[in-house]
């Protein structure tokens, strides 16, 4: 996990988000640090939920900061579903930023937004095994890596 987090931190530092050093960037780094800290939580279901929780907040804020840094009007966007849709549609031209392929948007909507909403908004809902939280964590990392390299 440590190396995967280091890779995401480095990609963000090397992006316009890192260049502008907006407050959101510092917040994202804080969330990624929390992901590593909760790795020491002994109770497995709590650890899995906390990993999902902190990485979810990091992907939401990373995408928002990315859109903001590249000139998107983000005030009316309210979460990862909106951000992904904007990156796919690109109703306005944003120089140097490619469109997010439709299958990627659909994938991240289903594998991140839909899955994590279940864990974060439903009482007594936890990733039932490590493979579930690991899959979600991996999808979140793939999403950040794909978006910063559009």
């Amino acid at each position, binding site marked *: 996990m440590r*190396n995967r987090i280091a890779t995401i*931190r*480095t*990609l963000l*530092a*090397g992006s316009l988000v890192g260049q502008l050093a907006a407050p959101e960037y510092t917040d994202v780094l804080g969330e990624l640090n929390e992901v590593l800290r909760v790795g020491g939580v002994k109770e497995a279901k709590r650890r899995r939920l906390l990993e999902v929780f902190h990485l979810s907040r990091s992907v939401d804020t990373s995408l928002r900061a990315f859109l903001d840094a590249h000139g998107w009007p983000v005030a009316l966007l309210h979460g990862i579903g909106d951000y992904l849709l904007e990156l796919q549609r690109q109703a306005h031209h944003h120089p140097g930023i490619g469109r997010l*392929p439709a299958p990627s948007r659909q994938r991240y909507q289903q594998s991140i937004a839909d899955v994590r909403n279940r864990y974060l908004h439903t009482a007594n809902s936890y990733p039932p095994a490590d493979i579930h939280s690991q899959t979600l964590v991996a999808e979140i990392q793939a999403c950040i890596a794909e978006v910063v*390299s559009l």
Partner: protein
Amino acid sequence: MNEDLVNLAGTASEYGEIAVRPDHPFLLHGPELLFGSRGLLLAFFLAGGRIRSGPDSLLARLALARLALPSHTLCVAVFGSRVGNLAPELRAENNFHILLDLSSGAEAQRVLSKPEPNARAQEIPPRVRHQQRSRAAYLLRIADEVALTQSGRDRGKSVSSQRTRIGGGSWTGRHRRDPGLPRDSDRPCWVVGSSSDDVRTPSSLRRAVESLTLRSYVLDNGVPHPTSSGGSVIASLGPIRSSQDPTKPRRAAAFAGACLVERVDEESLIDVERHLGLSGGTQ
């Protein structure tokens, strides 16, 4: 770990964020070191002649890394000192943005603080990047669908004991312990593993992915130009276990242009052929 890499990472960490042997979700084997600071992104590849993997492997890794990393990433060929001299086959002065000679004093600090890319390595056209991304996303979806269908039924007839055709090419899984090219095929299929009980790690895909990349792209001034737009197949006779990132084998294979089928059987081959629009059929 290579001592030069340790020293380089130590120096780089004073200038910004680093990931040593970064675990990128789309790459089985990316650069040895990734460095990011204030919008600057550098990918360091050990490129000296004493690196075991060889020039072809390095060029395949470079091609995929350039496609996976942001377009402004500067790729650095590291040589000298214990790493050895640059292999001429790399055409490093053309394919990399920066050449870093470790035997030359404070060169690393200069590259990290004020990199000066050469003019030859060019940017990948946005169209190429988008087409490659779209194909990868499509292939990953197919691989997921095939895996989902497989999980809902009993394992079918093994393909390891007979000749199998994919898209007009043929291969015999039984005799192929290592990935290799099939005969007479424009749509190659790579085979990983030696039996259906052979549990592999994602690194077992590396040779197949690198072969596929060398076949699918021509690297010209650092730009991987695609030679075909279709998808290939990597068939693993057994499962591939990736404990920390369960989807990585399928994702990385798709990014390189192949649909990965694990625990391959005849039905899954027919399934993947149908999805990819291949005409071969099984024999």
